[in-house]
């Protein structure tokens, strides 16, 4: 009997993983323990089974499986404040081998996510640049902002609509108010509404989101009041249509065909309906100004519209139109941040290529 047991032991040559370390998963909201181990040197390993024991209990529970090339596992079914320890079981086709248990560990939530430190540093630098240039703008130092053709065309488009006696259609995208593009579009709508109020041009603003509808209505109303034409504001200028994407596209297409606005603005977040709207607008002969941060929709707008605000131009538009020095200062801050990113990319690339430094890990 003793001989046969010894034989089995000698035949059971599968080596278990070593250095099993269990520790609280960093930068999380608690409820997770991170396990790492050094893989078994055997080539017959099929997988690793992760076993967990709660302090004070005798049983080991299987909590997960990891592939043969894995050397880490996150157990996210644990409770904060309770002590656990782990074993890793090496599994081959015919046998298993247990590692030594890890030390007891406990998980807890963290108050700071250090993984997001680069984003925090970048944002702080960016904020400092913006504040610096806003300060310069406050001291009336002239800031050069390049020409944006799409925004220069706004006046011309409004003038054309007024001369033709037709309206302006403004579609502030199909996204909700928590989308920055929608907020940027609201800012532009405010400026456009001030100008339509000044010229007495009819404004049509169909909306897809009920919250955006309420915000847009207030923006237009306030703009008309600011332009001294509160009497010209009409509740029916800004109206909710539907939250169905293609039903909305059909409704806006119908408005363009029936009302024949002289100018169409498509500014905000758009999806597949972008080309349906822009192409229909093009067939009506309207001047079309589009602006979006949806990269995949940009080619459609560039093709079908007269002017397109590409990406960041959308965010710069309200400052460009209002010419408020404080807002222009923020744009300057953006430009210098981009320059900084460009320099970092070039320097990192040169370092990676020439000195073979692992610079990509910095970011």
């Amino acid at each position, binding site marked *: 009997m003793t001989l046969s047991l010894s034989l089995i032991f000698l035949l059971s040559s599968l080596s278990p993983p070593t250095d099993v370390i269990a520790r609280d998963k960093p930068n999380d909201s608690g409820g997770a323990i991170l396990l790492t181990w050094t893989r078994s040197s055997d080539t017959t390993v099929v997988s690793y089974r992760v076993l967990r024991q709660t302090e004070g209990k005798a049983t080991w529970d299987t909590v997960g499986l990891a592939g043969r090339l894995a050397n880490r596992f996150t157990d996210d079914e644990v409770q904060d404040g309770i002590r656990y320890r782990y074993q890793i079981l090496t599994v081959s086709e015919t046998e298993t081998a247990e590692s030594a248990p890890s030390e007891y560990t406990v998980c807890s939530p963290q108050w700071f996510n250090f993984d997001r430190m680069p984003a925090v540093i970048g944002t702080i630098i960016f904020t400092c640049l913006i504040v610096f240039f806003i300060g310069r703008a406050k001291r009336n130092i002239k800031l050069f902002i390049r020409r944006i053709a799409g925004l220069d065309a706004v006046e011309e488009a409004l003038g054309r609509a007024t001369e033709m006696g037709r309206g302006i259609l403004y579609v502030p995208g199909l996204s909700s108010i928590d989308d920055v593009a929608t907020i940027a579009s609201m800012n532009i709508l405010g400026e456009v509404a001030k100008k339509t109020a000044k010229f007495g041009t009819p404004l049509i603003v169909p909306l897809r989101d009920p919250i955006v509808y309420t915000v847009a209505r207030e923006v237009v109303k306030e703009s008309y009041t600011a332009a001294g034409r509160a009497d010209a504001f009409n509740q029916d200028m800004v109206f909710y249509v539907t939250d169905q994407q293609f039903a909305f596209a059909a409704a806006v297409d119908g408005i363009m065909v029936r009302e024949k606005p002289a100018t169409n603005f498509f500014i905000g977040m758009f999806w597949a309906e972008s080309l349906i709207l822009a192409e229909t607008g093009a067939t009506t002969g309207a001047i079309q100004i589009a602006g979006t941060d949806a*990269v995949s929709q940009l080619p459609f707008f560039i093709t079908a519209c007269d002017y397109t605000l590409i990406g960041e131009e959308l965010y710069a538009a309200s400052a460009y139109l209002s010419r408020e020095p404080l807002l222009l200062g923020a744009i300057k801050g953006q430009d210098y941040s981009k320059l900084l990113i460009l320099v970092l990319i070039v320097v990192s690339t040169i370092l990676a290529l020439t000195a073979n430094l692992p610079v990509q890990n910095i970011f």
Partner: protein
Amino acid sequence: MKRRLPLMIVLVLGIFGAVAFVIPHPIVKSIDETMRNDVLRIITAFSLVLGVGSIIQHHLIKIRRKAEHWPFSYIALISLAVSAAIGLFGGIDPASPGILPTHIGGFSFHMQALYDNIMIPLASTMFALLAFFMASAAYRAFRARNLEATLLLIAAFILMLGAVPLGRMLIRPLPDFAEWILTVPNTAAKRGIMFGIGLGSIATSLKIILGIERGWLGGGG
């Protein structure tokens, strides 16, 4: 006060939103999720009432003024009333019936049936139109009017030819070259735009949080 209160709410909640990005603690996370999900849902529910009010008002004005195609406004209002009645009193599907009968013989008109048999086919029809709009847009884009349009035309031609077996038959490395155009110059341009969008988003958020940008309040101080 009418202006100061919204600005103060935006300042406090904006800073909280930014702070919640770097603090994973459940206390902060749960408040953040409540604000993003529950509070937003409550606001949406209220604004939906305003939205429906807007639809009714818009179409009533059209009917009153006998605007172009005004009879369609009747259809819109009747559809709204009927679907609202079915949704509120007829149940969502046969498994959860309401007090209103939603089938006549084998013909069902409960909410799910309306959605499946009216909304989806209509939306699909609109989506299908995209193919025709693409053809007309492509025709316009591919007229080599200037250098940019010519470059677009050449790139599109290479990509289209590289995507079909004929391309490989004619020029063996063409599919690889097409793939290179897509993954290298195209991605580089996209990333450039994305950098600008990222910075623009942060700048816009910052301007709104700090109360510098007040366009969303109708502008002014």
